């Protein structure tokens, strides 16, 4: 994870690629092809509301990450990696209510996502660019508790898919800020055991509000 963030930051601080074609007029317009690293902060309302509330007391959780976007005219492709890690407690559910049992549990979610999308660019001087996208991801899930034997912890990875809609605001010639909403659906991790099974929740995804700070034109 640290390695990925490092690579992304290096890319962010790198000069524009030679392949980027400058437009006329001294750099006021976006290139036709650009490679833009970004950092990402996400607040996700997890679909497994009861499950996360049982362990952490809340179901809106932060993810931190980074990625790289390749934009070709109106199309873009980006890859990103992020992570959520939090320590709560083991719990159980009875009669629709959650009860914590005070035993520390640390859950880690590491999404690795690939997104393809379309940018609604109408003019070369447009500062706010809406975009739509969709993609697939590979989602790692790790669960470690005190007093557990090795086979009682969880370390798995499953695929999921998502859709995203948002807009990017160019705040500086080299810096853009993107804000979007992403709907993710991840199956195969929750719902087969633990509190999630009792809560009847099998989706590790949710609705995420994301803010991206992109470097590049």
């Amino acid at each position, binding site marked *: 994870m640290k390695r990925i963030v490092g690579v992304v930051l290096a890319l962010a601080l790198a000069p524009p690629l030679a392949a980027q074609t400058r437009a006329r007029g001294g750099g006021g317009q976006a290139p036709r092809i650009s490679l833009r690293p970004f950092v990402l902060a996400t607040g996700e309302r997890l679909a497994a509301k009861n499950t996360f509330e049982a362990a952490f007391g809340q179901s809106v959780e932060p993810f931190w990450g980074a990625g790289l976007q390749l934009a070709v005219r109106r199309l873009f492709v980006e890859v990103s990696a992020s992570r959520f890690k939090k320590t709560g407690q083991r719990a159980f559910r009875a*009669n629709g209510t959650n009860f914590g049992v005070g*035993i520390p549990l640390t859950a880690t979610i590491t999404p690795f996502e690939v997104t393809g999308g379309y940018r609604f660019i109408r003019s070369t001087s447009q500062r706010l660019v809406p975009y739509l996208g969709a993609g697939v991801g590979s989602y790692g899930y790790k669960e470690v508790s005190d007093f557990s034997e090795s086979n009682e912890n969880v370390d798995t990875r499953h695929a999921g898919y998502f859709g995203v809609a948002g807009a990017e605001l160019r705040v500086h010639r080299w810096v853009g800020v993107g804000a979007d909403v992403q709907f993710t659906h991840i199956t195969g991790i929750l719902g087969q055991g*633990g509190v999630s099974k009792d809560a009847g929740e099998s989706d590790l995804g949710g609705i995420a509000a994301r803010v991206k700070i992109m470097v590049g034109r």
Partner: protein
Amino acid sequence: MFWLALLFVSGVRGHGQAPTASPRVMVQERGLPPIEWGIIADLSRAPDTPETRRRLSIHRESAILDRVGASGTRYVPGRVIVKFRNGVSNVSRVTALSAISRTASMFERPSYANFDVVRIELNEDAEAVARALGQRPDVEYAQAAYRVRTQLVPNDKFYSMQWNLPLIDLERAWDIQPGAGSAITVAVVDTGVAYTSATARFHAFPFRDDRGVLYPSLGDLTLSFVAATELGPPSRFVAPHDFIWDDNLPLDLDGHGTHVSGTIGQLTNNGTNGAGDTRNGGGTAGVAFNVKLMPVKVISSDWDDIFGSPNEGTDDIVARGIRYAVDNGAKVLNMSIGRTGEPAPVMEDAIKYAVGKGAFVVIAAGNDFEAGNRTEVIAEIASRVQGAVSVASIDQSRKHAFYSSTGSWVELAAPGGSFRGFPASGGILQQTLDLDLVETFNLPPSRYTAPRFDVLAYFYFIGTSQATPHVAGLGAMLMQQGVTDPAAIEAALEKFATPCSESLNTCNETVGPNRNNSYGFGLVEARNTLRGLGLAK
């Protein structure tokens, strides 16, 4: 009207049935140091043995004999338990009583009761009076004073002999919670507990055994009582109370309550320098070995009867004991007691009161499987109250114990032991009174002597009485873990129980999760219950 009210108040002490003054005299609140034996392999206290039948039938020569009701349930004649609806005036109460029975009068309401006790003539049919009262619109319920008994089946050291504790994965549970319930008080609603040293004087009245043989009076006896060394120091016991003798000295004249207390919270891991039975390497272990214990005596033993205790173990006494326990801070109530027969609304009311006050109530499911397998009244109440559970018994091979009652009221199973197909070590081992020196009434009259309550030994007992304290101890540990809602404790215990199969007659993880009549939701599993669940596993 005034005179009618005055009549009501004065009637409180009417009909020559005022309670006999307690003949027990406290000589001093200390006694000689205890004598301790090791294990005594005695199979006599098992369901339906001659000794058990004999103990049930012993009655003081001058005592008012229990009457058997229409359903075959024994009750104490001369009184009816009644609860009037809120707002019913004293005058209306007197009117109601006089309409039902010419001789009925009411005693002053006893402590820790939301009901009244009506005195009637000894020869009146208490069940009929209760039925008639119960049909009145101003009465919520009325019932006879049915006898409640212990659900033990005893017989008679040491951890390696306590197969019952590893069987419910308790060792790994202790890793999770080494505190083992130190902030929780468990009330032992039972025959009393050997919790203190004392010397007391009694008068032993003559009595007849099950064959009608008369045993002579032993006259005035000055008896020494000792505290069970393995239950810990006096500071461990909170708010002791005796509803059989109406005082604060719930001494165990039977051994049942002491044995049950041991399984709940016997000092554990005290083998070398511990405070307990160091001579024997620390004795036995208990489930929640740091809990506070509250001895609440509500069951009269044979010796209580022979000594002429003012009260017997009837529904109203047990109900008061339950209310007393929760009002004085108990968070878990262990009730290794039960009865069959008529409903017990007074008990149901008390159990709901206890759960409403945040106490988890654990009740024995009954030992009558081979004796008609009739519905256990108190356990059946537990099955309808979220936060109260009834507990059946399994043997060392995780099978249904031969005596354990089965029915829809069974909610959980725990080790209660068995001597059938197993040696004495098939029972549940704990320290208690030396029964050979307590139950001298089992000897012929020529050898009948005063009992001794100052000698301790380790006995294997069997019964749902022995299964119940495992669950009470676990409930206390779960409560210490932070799960304080009694209904949630019940749900957790049921959820994490190992499923058992009625058809395969065993408990293991390969059988289905369905509740059944022999095991309820299954065999309690200590470690998994305390550990709860992760998000995904």
